[in-house]
């Protein structure tokens, strides 16, 4: 294969299109608008380099180069090593195994060898829609600027600009994720039992190494797991599973690396079937409720983040850790969820 050559088109006046809906989202930082030379044919594209390593001249020596057409469709991906292309990479689908932007991206990349196995599933493009996030800010708390692409253009943005924002209106019964693009169902409640869920479409996250039971309550990980890990990509809305009052302590919304392994967390004191119930919500990114605040079942209280030890080798990716105390005694949180889970942690009765 030829080497990749490209020219960065910063602050270009070229127009790209933006729409409001999508089915899959990928968070990409530091996307560049580039002109590619594919065997002598110039192609405009958007480039993202995953896991780049720079030489002393600040040139990329190795990394995964991923390209998208300006209409948002996946174009191609290559792995560069020692300035030479060593692999062609093709998107193989989305899952939840990553826990950060870069890890998510590495997870969905599968290798394709067109010479040896051209019919491999990894050689088939599987994404029909894609979202590209351009985040020029340095703070994790800044809202990213969104360039969303689909086949039918509805609005134009300047690809070289770092201003502008997307706007999505979710239908009734849905809440916008912290990505400002994805609409999530509000979890349903069992009117008879009063049980509720903190997420829509709940599923217990497995351990990256031990299998599904690793995310359950108890002894799945070598040490006692005091709670349940629920699969939740970064930025997923979190709802109060039960009505109650946000505890004054413990409460944290300003976690930094090196701090408590629970990260940003909220505890909500409730009553359930005559018992005192406290549910703790760990590893949040943005926290939307304050200590002492009364919250209702199904109320949005925050978004999942990557705080605490959410990236531990003993978890399989981004998740919401839920901890339960019944009358002050540690308890399996599943007892208070509307959702029931199968032996592999799958949701067997979601209403969403």
């Amino acid at each position, binding site marked *: 294969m030829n080497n990749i050559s490209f020219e960065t088109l910063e602050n270009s006046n070229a127009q790209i299109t933006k729409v409001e809906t999508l089915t899959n989202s990928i968070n990409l930082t530091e996307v560049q608008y580039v002109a590619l030379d594919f065997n002598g044919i110039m192609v405009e594209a958007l480039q993202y380099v995953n*896991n780049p*390593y720079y*030489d002393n001249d600040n040139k990329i*020596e*190795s990394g995964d180069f991923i390209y998208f057409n300006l209409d948002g469709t996946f174009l191609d991906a290559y*792995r560069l*090593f*020692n300035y030479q292309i*060593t*692999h062609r*990479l093709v998107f*193989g689908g989305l899952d939840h*195994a*990553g826990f950060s932007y870069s*890890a998510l991206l*590495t*997870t969905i*990349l*599968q*290798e394709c060898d067109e010479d040896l196995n051209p019919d491999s599933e990894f050689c088939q493009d599987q994404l029909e829609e894609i979202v590209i996030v351009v985040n020029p800010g340095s703070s994790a708390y800044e809202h990213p600027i969104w360039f969303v692409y689909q086949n039918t253009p509805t609005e134009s943005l300047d690809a070289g600009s770092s201003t502008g924002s997307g706007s999505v209106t979710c239908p009734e019964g849905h809440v916008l994720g912290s990505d400002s693009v994805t609409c999530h169902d509000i979890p349903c409640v069992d009117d008879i039992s009063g049980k509720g869920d903190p997420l829509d479409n709940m599923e217990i996250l497995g*351990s*990256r*190494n*031990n299998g599904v039971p*690793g995310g359950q309550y*108890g*002894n*799945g*990980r*070598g*040490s*006692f*797991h*005091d709670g349940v890990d629920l699969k939740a990509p970064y930025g997923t809305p979190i709802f109060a599973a039960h009505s109650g009052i946000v505890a004054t*302590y*413990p409460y944290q919304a300003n976690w930094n*690396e*090196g*701090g*408590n*392994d*629970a990260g940003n967390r909220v505890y909500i004191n409730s009553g359930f079937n005559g018992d005192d119930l406290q549910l703790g919500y760990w590893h949040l990114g943005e926290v939307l409720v304050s200590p002492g605040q009364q919250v209702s079942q199904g109320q949005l209280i925050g978004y999942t983040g990557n705080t605490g*030890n959410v990236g*531990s*080798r*003993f978890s399989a990716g981004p998740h919401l850790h839920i901890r339960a105390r019944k009358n002050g005694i*540690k308890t399996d949180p599943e007892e208070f969820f509307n959702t029931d889970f199968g032996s592999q942690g799958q949701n067997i009765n979601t209403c969403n």
Partner: protein
Amino acid sequence: MKNIIILAAFFTSLLNFAQNNINPSNCTYSQSDLTLTLNGWDISRSNYDHFTFINTAALRQYAGLQYSGEKDTAEFGYPWFYYTLDDNYIHFAGVLDTSGDYTGNKRLFSFKINSGNQFNLNGIEIGDATQEVFNLFPNHCIDGNEIVVFYDQTALSFKFNPTNNLITSMALDSGM
């Protein structure tokens, strides 16, 4: 020959890059296999106390060392102790039994060493060659640009820069 081995290891890492899953049985060690020490502190010790630790680990010499004292006991039901030095941190925590009850013992729970030469794991420091890790752990797993081993119910990972095969960070996780 050494370069060839390192290069082979890097390409092995590339092949594993997309999987994000590793088989712990290929890279698991127990206390009986070897003793791991962070600045001379046996990471399996369960009789932690602050002064013994900082004396053993020779951390008194660093004015920037921050120590939290006992924290978060009411929240978790067992104590935590946090150390920070520059962008490096070490957490100790109470040891639980299989029912999740605090045994009264305390041990190293997690750490992440990102920079500097104040910390070493069995002599391995940030900036050392990956070969040092391979020598210490002949049976290791590679996940992307991380070397991973499991040891005594913890997971150790060493991130490295594949362009020069130097260690860029060391971390220890425990399940929670």
